[in-house]
C-alpha cells in the first residue's frame, strides 16, 4: 500500500529511539536509564483536582486556545517567575504537550523549501516536525568543547538565506546543557540580523540547578521574534497528561490556534484543570522534586567520572551525557553491548542526531539505589574494555 503514501510520510524516518526501545523490550530484568520522563507521579493535589472536575461533570470541550482560567494563571505565573509578559486573551495557546506546540509553530511559519536551523544533538521531534513541513533542515552542532552550548560561529556556518526558524532548546535534552543570558545574547543579535523566528523549547526550564533560567523572549528585541514553548510534563511530572503551551506574538499564536482547532480542537479538559491547580499550589511539590534531581545529578556525574569517562556537568534537565570514546565503541555499539552484557539500557547519543556520536544519554529520573546499581554495572562493562 506504500504507493498511496505521501512522500512526506514515506520519507519520515522513525525516531532513533524506536530501535533501541524495541531492543531493550526484549531483555528481561533490565535497569533502564533510558526514560525521558520523571519517576515521580504527578503531585496529588493536581491529580485530585482533575478527578474532582470529572466528578463535577467537567467533561466537555474547552475553547480552542484552552481554558481562559488556565491561560490567565499561566500569564500571571510567567510574569511573576520568568519576566515574560503575554496576554491570556490572544498570546497564549494551550496544546497537547510541548511537542504539539513545536509542530504548530513550524507549520504556521514554514513552507516547503524554507530553511530551519536545528541544534544537533537535540530532542527527536524537531527534525521530524520540520520535515513534515517540507523544510530544509540545517543542523547546528552543539560541541562538547563548548559544554554543548550553541555558539554563534556555528550558527553562521550552518545558516543560509532561506532560513526562517532557529530552534533553541535549553536546558537541553539530551545533553543537560543550559545557556546563560550572556551565552544567549550573541544568538539574539544573530536572530535580529538575519530576521529569524525562534522556537524556544523551554520545557526543562524549571529544572535548572545553577542560577536562574533565562527565557529567550526576555532578551532585547526577542519578545516578538520568539515562540516560547513549554509545558507541564517535566517539572510537574505530567508526561502522560499531555499538556503544554506556546506563547508569542498574537499573529503567530492565532495562526497556530487555527491549525490546532482543526486537528486537535482543544487539549483535554481534565489535564488543563490539573495544570491550573499545579500553577496555583504545585510549587512545593515541584521544589521537592528539583532538590531530589539535583542530588542524583551530582551522583551521576561523579559516578561516570570515577569510571574514567569524561562527563561534562549538566546544569539542567535530568540527563547526563557522558563521552564514551575512550571505549573505542560507537554510541550505538556501546549502548547495544551494555544492554546485552550488563542489562542496562541507555540511549545512544546518535538517537538525537549525528552530533551525539561518542556519547550516551543517561536519565537520572530513577531512585538512588537504581542509579548506583546501574553505575556499578556500567563500571564493570567499561573496565572490561579500557
Amino acid at each position, binding site marked *: 500500500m506504500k504507493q498511496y503514501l505521501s512522500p512526506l510520510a514515506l520519507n519520515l524516518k522513525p525516531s532513533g529511539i524506536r530501535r533501541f526501545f524495541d531492543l*531493550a*523490550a526484549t531483555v528481561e530484568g533490565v535497569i*533502564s536509564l*533510558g*526514560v525521558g520522563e520523571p519517576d515521580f507521579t504527578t503531585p496529588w493535589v493536581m491529580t485530585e483536582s482533575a478527578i474532582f472536575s470529572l466528578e463535577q461533570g467537567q467533561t466537555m470541550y474547552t475553547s480552542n486556545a484552552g481554558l481562559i482560567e488556565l491561560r490567565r494563571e499561566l500569564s500571571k505565573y510567567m510574569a511573576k517567575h520568568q519576566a515574560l509578559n503575554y496576554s491570556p486573551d490572544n498570546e497564549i495557546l494551550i496544546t497537547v504537550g510541548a511537542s504539539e506546540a513545536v509542530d504548530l509553530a513550524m507549520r504556521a511559519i514554514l513552507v516547503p523549501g524554507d530553511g530551519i536551523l536545528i541544534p544537533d544533538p537535540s530532542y527527536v521531534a524537531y527534525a521530524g516536525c520540520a520535515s513534515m513541513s517540507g523544510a530544509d533542515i540545517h543542523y547546528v552542532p552543539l560541541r562538547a568543547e563548548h559544554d554543548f552550548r550553541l555558539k554563534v560561529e556555528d550558527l553562521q556556518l550552518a545558516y543560509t538565506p532561506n532560513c526562517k526558524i532557529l530552534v533553541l532548546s535549553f536546558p537541553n535534552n539530551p545533553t543537560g546543557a543550559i545557556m546563560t543570558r550572556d551565552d544567549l545574547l550573541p544568538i539574539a543579535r544573530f536572530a535580529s540580523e538575519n530576521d529569524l523566528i525562534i522556537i524556544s523549547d523551554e520545557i526543562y526550564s524549571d529544572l535548572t540547578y545553577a542560577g536562574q533560567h533565562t527565557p529567550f523572549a526576555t532578551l532585547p528585541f526577542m519578545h516578538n521574534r520568539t515562540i516560547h514553548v513549554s509545558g507541564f510534563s517535566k517539572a510537574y511530572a505530567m508526561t502522560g497528561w499531555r499538556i503544554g503551551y506556546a506563547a508569542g506574538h498574537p499573529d503567530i499564536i492565532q495562526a497556530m490556534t487555527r491549525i490546532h482547532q482543526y486537528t486537535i480542537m482543544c487539549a483535554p479538559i481534565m489535564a488543563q484543570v490539573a495544570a491550573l491547580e499545579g500553577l496555583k499550589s504545585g510549587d512545593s511539590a515541584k521544589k521537592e522534586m528539583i532538590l*531530589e534531581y*539535583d542530588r542524583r545529578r*551530582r551522583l551521576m556525574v561523579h559516578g561516570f567520572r570515577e569510571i574514567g569517562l569524561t562527563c561534562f556537568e549538566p546544569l539542567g534537565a535530568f540527563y547526563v551525557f557522558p563521552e564514551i570514546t575512550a571505549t573505542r565503541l560507537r554510541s550505538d555499539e556501546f549502548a547495544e553491548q551494555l544492554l546485552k552484557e550488563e542489562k542496562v*539500557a541507555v540511549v545512544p547519543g546518535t538517537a538525537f542526531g549525528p552530533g551525539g556520536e561518542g556519547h550516551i544519554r543517561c536519565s537520572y529520573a530513577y531512585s*538512588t539505589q537504581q542509579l548506583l546499581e546501574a553505575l556499578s554495572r556500567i563500571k564493570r562493562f567499561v573496565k572490561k574494555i579500557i
Partner: protein
Amino acid sequence: MLTEEDRRLLHVLSQDCRLTPEELSIQTGLTPDYINKKIKQWESDKVIVRYSTLINYDQLEEDRVTALIDLKVMPQRGQGYDKIAQRFQKFPEIKSVYLMSGDFDLCLIVEGKNMHDIAQFVSDKLSPLDLIETTSTRFILRRYKQDGVEFHGEEERPQRLVITP
C-alpha cells in the same frame, strides 16, 4: 533562614542518614569539611535530633499495636499543660505527646504488644491521674503512609516504558 546549600544538605540527609560525609559531598556539591561542621552544629543545636530508621512493622510477623489516645486534662495554674505533658513524656510506652486544638487537649501515641497491653496501660497509668477528665482511645488498624513514605500501593504503580525520548 536556611541557605540553599543547607537546604540541599538537609534534603539528602533526610532521605538517607547513613551516607558518609564524602558521599554527602558528592550528592550536595559541598565540601566534607563544611558538611562535618554543619552536622555538628545542627546536632548541638538540636536541629538534628536523632538518626532513625523508618520500619514497616506490618511486614514483620511481630505483635505490635499503636493507639492514638486523646485526653481532656485540667490545665494547672501557672504551668498550663506543660507539667502534665512532661509527665507523659517519661513513659516509654508513649512515643509522642502533642498539645492539640479542638475537643481534646492532648494526643498521645502509645505503642504496645496488643490491644490488651494498651488497655492496661490506659487503665493503670493514665485514667487514675487526677488531672485527666476524659480519654478516648483509637487503635491504628493499617498504616498506609508514615513520614511521607507510602507503605501500600507502590507495588501496583504502573511502570514507565523502558526508553522514551
